[in-house]
């Protein structure tokens, strides 16, 4: 099937060329980082994780969101999604690969990464995260690819493939839960020390993932003969709506506990993000942009008339993606690390080089996504036409 | 077979590139390594293990010493070979005696290509003896 990725029109190859260029440039910047150390990033002794790790966290969510097409199809027999489960699985493949790359580029000694396997440490959540992510990657590559191949040959996938699919279903929330546990178990970080972190992560993942899939579906419809279909898109939009509402609700629960209990160690982080602390307001606008985007998206998604209008649906998906990205893909780190253990305020912004490397990893993910989608769509068109 | 000519030409070029190290070094000879002992090492007569063992397995010993000192807090080593006790320390024991790293360590390491990316990273942190 891979030969499908090797033919395409001019636009396809232009896109590939652009992505490869960005990857190449960022690769050289990464070499520069290897030579000079992580000093070229905006991170420091207080905000010791930054854009890289927050991208990783956000993308674990995107990967887990494949569940939102696989589960209705295989557990509720929602046939509409049978045509697009592979799109969800391939999105997960690309996202998990990006996750791994983001972890890798964040390491101070990437040459020693295999020490994690050489000295396995079951009490470390990071060890488990590596395990569950690797397994999830394999599950999605194998199931996505095999299902596509069997459908192409017009036979039902064999039992072992279906078994893997059923394993992948609980595995999706598992990866994001373990990722939340990276943060939620640290005694000194009031912003992260909350039992609702994993549920909140899952809620934000299950709205951002379907929103991304809807946007991808519209792009696919414009650039190929494959139409995901209005019913599927509307169903995805409904799923995103519920998840987004859950996400905002969880945020509200979080805020209530922190604001009403008024324990400074928890409160100060939220104050810093929402109203500013000690005269420092750097992240306040971003926080509000995130909250307002999510609220507007809820209104656009919840009213059937708006949801069924293409422009508004696209807007809502875009707002959802940006809103959750600011929340999880940037502020999660700042909120967790500031104020620092001595109560000082430290301002973190990614540097130019850090952003280039980040863009490079994203481009690599998009490249994989484009190639896998090209294959999937070509095969689907072949089956359906 | 389609494009026979192109495929065979490609294979040949590929082989030539893969064998580049052979082509570049063809006809060259290299001096065998000749590590020299420092005066102090000569006078000590015996290292902590027989010479051939040190030659073939010093890296294993170093890793053992590393784990003993850092992980077990055990900094005393008893050599059965010369029946003496030593502090487990690369800088203060090994390199104090073998203070001529360039003529001793590097001599073989350079010859065997244990340099650059494949070199032991000891000296990124441990201090090389001043020569």
């Amino acid at each position, binding site marked *: 099937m891979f030969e499908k990725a090797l033919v395409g029109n001019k636009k396809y190859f232009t896109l590939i060329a652009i992505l490869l260029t960005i990857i190449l440039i960022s690769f050289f910047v990464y070499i520069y980082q290897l030579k*000079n*150390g*992580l*000093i070229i990033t905006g991170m420091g*002794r*207080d905000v*010791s994780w930054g854009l890289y790790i927050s991208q990783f966290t956000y993308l674990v969510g995107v990967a887990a969101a494949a569940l939102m097409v696989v589960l209705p199809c295989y557990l509720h027999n929602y046939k509409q999604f049978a045509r697009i489960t592979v799109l969800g699985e391939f999105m997960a493949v690309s996202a998990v690969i990006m996750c791994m790359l983001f972890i890798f580029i*964040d*390491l*101070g*000694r990437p040459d*020693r990464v295999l*020490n*994690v396997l*050489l*000295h396995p*440490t079951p*009490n*470390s*959540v*990071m*060890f488990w995260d590596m395990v569950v992510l690797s397994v999830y990657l394999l599950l999605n590559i194998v199931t996505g690819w095999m299902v596509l191949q069997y459908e192409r040959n017009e036979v039902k996938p064999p039992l072992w493939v279906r078994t893997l699919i059923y394993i992948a279903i609980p595995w999706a929330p598992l990866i994001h839960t373990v990722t939340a546990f990276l*943060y939620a*178990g*640290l*005694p*000194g*970080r009031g912003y992260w020390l909350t039992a609702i972190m994993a549920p909140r992560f899952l809620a934000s993942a299950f709205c951002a993932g379907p929103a991304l899939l809807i946007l991808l579906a519209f792009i696919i419809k414009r650039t190929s003969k494959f139409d995901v279909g209005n019913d599927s898109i509307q169903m995805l939009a409904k799923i995103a709506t519920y998840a987004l509402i859950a996400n905002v609700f969880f945020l509200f629960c979080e805020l209530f506990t922190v604001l009403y209990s008024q324990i400074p160690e928890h409160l100060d982080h939220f104050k810093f993000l929402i109203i500013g602390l000690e005269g420092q307001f750097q992240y306040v606008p971003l926080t509000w942009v995130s909250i307002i985007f999510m609220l507007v998206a809820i209104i656009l998604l919840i009213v059937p008339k708006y949801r069924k209008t293409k422009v508004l649906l696209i807007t809502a998906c875009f707002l959802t993606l940006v809103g959750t990205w600011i929340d999880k893909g940037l502020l999660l780190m700042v909120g*967790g*690390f500031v104020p620092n*253990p*001595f*109560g000082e305020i430290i301002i973190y912004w990614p540097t130019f080089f850090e952003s280039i490397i980040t863009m490079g990893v994203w481009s690599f993910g998009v490249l994989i996504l484009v190639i896998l989608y090209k294959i999937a769509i070509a095969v689907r068109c072949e089956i359906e036409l | 077979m389609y494009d026979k000519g192109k495929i065979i030409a490609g294979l040949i070029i590929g082989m030539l590139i893969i064998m580049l190290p052979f082509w570049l070094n063809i006809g060259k000879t290299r001096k065998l390594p000749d590590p020299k002992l420092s*005066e*102090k090492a000569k*006078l*000590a007569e015996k290292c902590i293990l027989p010479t051939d063992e040190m030659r073939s397995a010093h890296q294993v010993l170093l890793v053992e010493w*590393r784990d003993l*000192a*850092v*992980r077990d*807090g055990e*900094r*005393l080593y008893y*050599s059965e070979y*010369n029946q*003496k*006790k*030593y*502090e487990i320390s690369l*800088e*203060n*024991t090994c390199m*104090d*005696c073998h203070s001529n790293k360039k003529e001793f360590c590097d001599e073989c390491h350079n010859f065997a290509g244990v340099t650059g990316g494949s070199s032991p990273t000891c000296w*990124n*942190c*441990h*201090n090389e003896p*001043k020569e």
Partner: protein
Amino acid sequence: MDKIDRRLFLKIASLSILGVTAGSLLEVVNPKDFKDNSIEPLTKLKAKRWAMAIDLTAINEAIINNCINKCHVTHNVPNLRDKQHEVKWIWQEKYSAVFNEGDNDFNLTTLYKNKNIPVLCNQCDNPPCVRVCPTKATFSRDDGIVVMDMHRCIGCRFCMAACPYGSRSFNWTDPRPYIDKINEEYPTREKGVVEKCDFCMERLDRGELPICVEESKNTIIFGDIGNKNSEIYNILSRRTFLRRKEHLGTRPQIFYLI
């Protein structure tokens, strides 16, 4: 013999040249003075649980600065001036910033509010950094010291996120250019690994006290808290002390006497 013939001259000359050369060789290492590297058995300092008490009523900035300086010189801690990229094993912070939990408007803060006090790794009995490390690069010794194995650290900085005290430093860049004078007897670190105070475990293993304790003019007391006859045990059972963020359950082993 009053005439030196050519043959004899050559003999004497060559012998004396040999003598001079041999002499210069012997100057390098005289076999009589030769001492190989073997040592007497080390008298290690041992404890059930090492702990440290810092007497805030007695310590002053001059002493603290001296401790910091001696520690950092001994352990080749680089001097990066950029605050966010600093590496530090022991340093000073305002009392009000160290004990900043809750409402500190009254009581002790008024007494010590603007006083600088030393902070270092708390050598927790229940260390979160050890719990999270994915490679066991940081681990607890049997005597309670939380050790960094620089050979194993992958630089993921999970321990820095886990430490509630900000006691850990990452090498954001190659530290060597920032070390004024390298102490040849102690290794440096390299870029990409995390480091921190380790209670001078290499000194304890050779029978010496931590360097800051030695330099503290008796304002820092160090000893075995697991031994009821030790000085530190007695002081802690007599005097009032604080520990940083005790409520987190990390059981820090740095006690601040007040």
